[in-house]
């Protein structure tokens, strides 16, 4: 039968090299270049195709909003938003004051003993070390505020994300309905939704919690759904066969068996939320994020130290939740009655100890925060000295960073920027659409056209193209770094072991923290953003490429070896071609991540779309800020569609 089917298929003629996909993409690029040289600066986005009044309308809308929000008797709509903002603000405020009332002794006891009870001694020591680090950095109070903010955001994200995830795990239809929304939430750079959130919730801790939640809910939903779907079907079927109702199946079978992934989703939600701390600092989320954002210009050393504190918190929370997940796993614990009794006594002892610590702290007036001694002044001096050193034109560091920065500007940013901003706009729109068509298919191409048109329509074409050029330079550098390192990590266990801790730290650092040192290292306006973007995106690309190369079927590799291929041949002719989907996914993710940093760099002189958003936030130019946010969103979607490839659908179906 199979033979018959095969016979029916027409034999594909080998297509000539000039019809291969890569060659066609290159041809499109060549066409765009031709258009650039032929009609440079002649066809800029026409004013007739922009909607200039939109910005004013938005400003009017914002004025109307703030007028109506603050009247004596606001309408139901405003009361709902105000109420939500107040509720969130109060929640964070309540948590913060709880930590302060416990005094620093009580808070430390709470954290360490809870981790000790559920996560074991090692994790508890890590937590203690984190508290000590906050004290030593002199950042106890902002750390507690940040923790309260994160805790509130995570709790609410999970309260929304876990039930939706369970629903998505149990219903294919709901999963299909919610996936595009989750995709969109993850493509949009966080910077782009700051404006709308601020307009609806006004600046404050409420807005900070909402921003964090938008970012942290998608992973909670996705991982939970994955966990529910990962429960062996035969167990679910067995429960059904014994007459279990849907609720019984969920509570007695699916949730307990999905436990590992449910806890992973808690863990990931915490890390995602923490990575938003700095951005939340921009819109009134106090704490460490505030220290970072306000310190960028006035006190960069302190901002860097605060960034370090965020990393310490992220690592401590990550380790603690992981330890708790493993230690409390019933399938590996095999509890006996006597063990259970001992644990119960231990729990009671911990509770008493926490109460005692809080009581003693209050009795002896320990104070809400640790204020006595800190190494902050010393740390600050050291960091500042380092920053001064790299900035000094007499040192060798300067002789490395300066030429590198200049090189990137001269041969990367400037030519690309002029190409993107000066090329005739139809060539740009249709060129990108064609590339999207060639790489990803018809629908992505149409979406690309629509999104680019949107950028033009909201009068952000030049800024958008400027941002695009920065993104391309950043992504190119990311790929130059990421692909070789990824392949190396896949090929050598030693290399992988060496890279892992570095990548871990890089992935937990909040985006803005990357930028700070490079403002000093490479004092050329656009470069810090691009370099920071590369550092931010490279770990993910390295991991994707490494995973892709490592997952290449061992049979194919073995077969190649059996034919006498050298290691280089195996790599070039088998592994890398077979890992193409993973590499393409790396390009896609890299673009999105680079975009998210490049726009944040608008805060520190990268200009373009990010600058417009920053202006909107800082100067109250709401209309312009919202439009720039819209353009960022459109660019994000367009970049995603151009490079999503034909394989994503297949990968999605497999998952």
């Amino acid at each position: 039968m199979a033979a018959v089917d095969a016979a029916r298929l027409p034999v594909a003629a080998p297509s000539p090299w000039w019809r291969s996909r890569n060659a066609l993409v290159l041809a499109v690029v060549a066409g765009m270049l031709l258009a650039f040289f032929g009609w440079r600066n002649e066809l800029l986005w026409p004013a007739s195709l922009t909607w200039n009044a939109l910005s004013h309308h938005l400003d009017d809308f914002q004025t109307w909003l703030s007028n109506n929000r603050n009247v004596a008797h606001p309408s139901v709509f405003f009361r709902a938003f105000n109420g939500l903002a107040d509720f969130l603000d109060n929640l964070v405020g309540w948590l913060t004051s709880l930590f302060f009332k416990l005094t620093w002794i009580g808070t430390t006891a709470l954290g360490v003993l809870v981790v000790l009870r559920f996560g074991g001694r090692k994790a508890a020591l890590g937590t203690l070390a984190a508290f000590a680090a906050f004290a030593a950095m002199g950042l106890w109070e902002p750390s507690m505020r940040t923790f309260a903010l994160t805790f509130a955001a995570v709790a609410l994200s999970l309260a929304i994300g876990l039930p939706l995830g369970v629903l998505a795990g149990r219903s294919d239809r709901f999963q299909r309905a919610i996936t595009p929304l989750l995709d969109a939430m993850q493509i949009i750079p966080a910077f782009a939704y700051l404006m709308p959130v601020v307009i609806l919730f006004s600046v404050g801790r409420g807005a900070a919690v909402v921003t964090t939640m938008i970012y942290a809910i998608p992973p909670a939903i996705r991982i939970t759904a994955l966990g529910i779907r990962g429960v062996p079907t035969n167990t679910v079927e067995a429960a059904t066969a014994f007459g279990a109702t849907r609720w019984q199946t969920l509570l007695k079978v699916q949730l307990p068996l999905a436990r590992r992934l449910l806890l992973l989703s808690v863990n990931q939600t915490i890390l995602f939320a923490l990575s938003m701390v700095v951005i939340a600092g921009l819109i009134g989320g106090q704490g460490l994020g505030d220290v970072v954002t306000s310190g960028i210009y006035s006190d960069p050393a302190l901002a860097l130290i605060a960034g370090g504190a965020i990393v310490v918190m992220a690592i401590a929370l990550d380790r603690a939740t992981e330890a708790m997940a493993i230690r409390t796993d019933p399938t590996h614990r095999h509890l006996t009655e006597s063990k259970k009794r001992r644990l119960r006594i231990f729990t009671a002892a911990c509770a008493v100890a926490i109460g005692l610590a809080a009581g003693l702290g209050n009795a002896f007036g320990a104070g809400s925060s640790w204020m006595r001694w800190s190494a902050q002044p010393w740390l600050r001096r050291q960091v500042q000295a380092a920053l001064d050193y790299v900035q000094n034109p007499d040192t060798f560091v300067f002789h490395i960073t300066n030429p590198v920065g200049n090189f990137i500007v001269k041969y990367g940013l400037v030519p690309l920027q002029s190409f993107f901003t000066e090329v005739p706009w139809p060539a740009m729109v249709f060129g990108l659409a064609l590339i999207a068509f060639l790489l990803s298919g018809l629908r992505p191409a149409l979406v690309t056209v629509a999104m680019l048109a949107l950028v033009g329509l909201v009068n952000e074409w030049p800024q958008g193209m400027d941002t695009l050029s920065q993104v391309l330079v950043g992504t190119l550098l990311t790929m130059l770094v990421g692909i070789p390192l990824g392949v190396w990590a896949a090929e050598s266990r030693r290399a992988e072991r060496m890279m892992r801790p570095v990548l871990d730290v890089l992935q937990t650092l909040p985006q803005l923290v990357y930028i700070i040192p490079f403002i000093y290292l490479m004092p050329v306006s656009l470069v810090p953003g691009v370099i920071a973007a590369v550092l931010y995106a490279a770990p993910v690309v390295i991991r994707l490429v490494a995973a892709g190369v490592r997952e290449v079927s061992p049979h194919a590799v073995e077969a190649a070896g059996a034919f006498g291929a050298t290691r280089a041949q195996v790599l070039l002719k088998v592994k890398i071609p077979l890992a193409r989907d993973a590499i393409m996914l790396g390009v896609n993710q890299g673009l999105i991540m680079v975009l998210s940093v490049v726009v944040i760099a608008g805060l520190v002189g990268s200009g373009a779309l990010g600058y417009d958003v920053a202006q909107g936030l800082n100067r109250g130019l709401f209309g312009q800020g919202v439009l720039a946010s819209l353009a960022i969103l459109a660019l994000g979607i367009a970049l995603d569609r151009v490079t999503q490839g034909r394989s994503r659908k297949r990968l999605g179906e497999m998952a």
Partner: protein
Amino acid sequence: MVAVAETASLGHEIDRSAEPLIRARNVWKVFGRNADKIVGTPEAQLSRSELRAKHDCVAAVRDVSFEVWPREVFVVMGLSGSGKSTLVRTLIRLIEPTAGEIEIAGQDVTSASPTELRQLRRHTSSMVFQHFGLLAHRRVIDNVAFGLEIQGVSKSERLARAEEVLKLVGLEEVGNSFPDQLSGGMQQRVGLARAFAVEPKVMLYDEPFSALDPLIRRDMQDEVIRLQHETGKTMVFITHDLPEALRLGDRIAIMRDGAIVQLGTPEDLVGSPADEYVENFVRDIPRSHVLTLRWIMRDPRPGEEDGPRLDVRTTVRKAVSLIAGSERPVCAVEDDRVVGVCDKEAVLTAIAGESD
């Protein structure tokens, strides 16, 4: 040649006078988007590959009818993809049948409401699965008590019952262990215990021993035979292993491409295969281990009725020594009445037939 033990069916009596406990009539299961439009039309006669090409449908079960009597062990045998696992799932609507009628213990399953169906699954049937389907996060005893827990039985009561059943399958020592601490064979014993704990009328086995290695599999078959003797449950047993089917089944249905190609006792299958497909299956089975005297006897001639007597249900293998050592043909007896005789020639022919 495959070694097969004597059929186990001699040990228990099947009550065929009562109503059948399970009745399946013209059951169809078609997978695919246009599944509803196939059954009842001439299209249903298309072969599997034609159906797939023309309608993008797969007929997993085609027009299957059978009845199972109380205390009977009914085996469905077929290769992978023959539709046997789908068939057993349609019986309690773990997979919805596309068409047909199913009745279990007098209740119409096909038209049962969700609540009725749940009651049926809780109290009337229970199932043993190929990959055990145990809950990794619970102790063995809690796994065994799972069905009772679902029914809402109180904790002390269900644990007492679970302990009882664990004793029945010889696992009383490991009640506090977790499934992953047990071997595959022991895990499936837990699966058996879980199914027995709810005291069902009907036990459904979906290839319960396929995942076990051959020695353990034999132990487990013995276990099922023993439990069958002790509890007299009605069983529907799915397998792809012919020796297993012959060993356990009172009657066996052989499935191919979703349809039953032959339904009969082990002797029927081995003695008179319905077609080439079944014949290929049973070719390696030593006939003398399965066939009984009924298959080789002839009508007695006058004067032959006073030879040595043997029950007509004795297998040829067991009868060989008596027949070979006797001067006169051996009489096959049913209910104290001579129904036929077997001579040496008949035995030799039966044994010679094995080497074909």
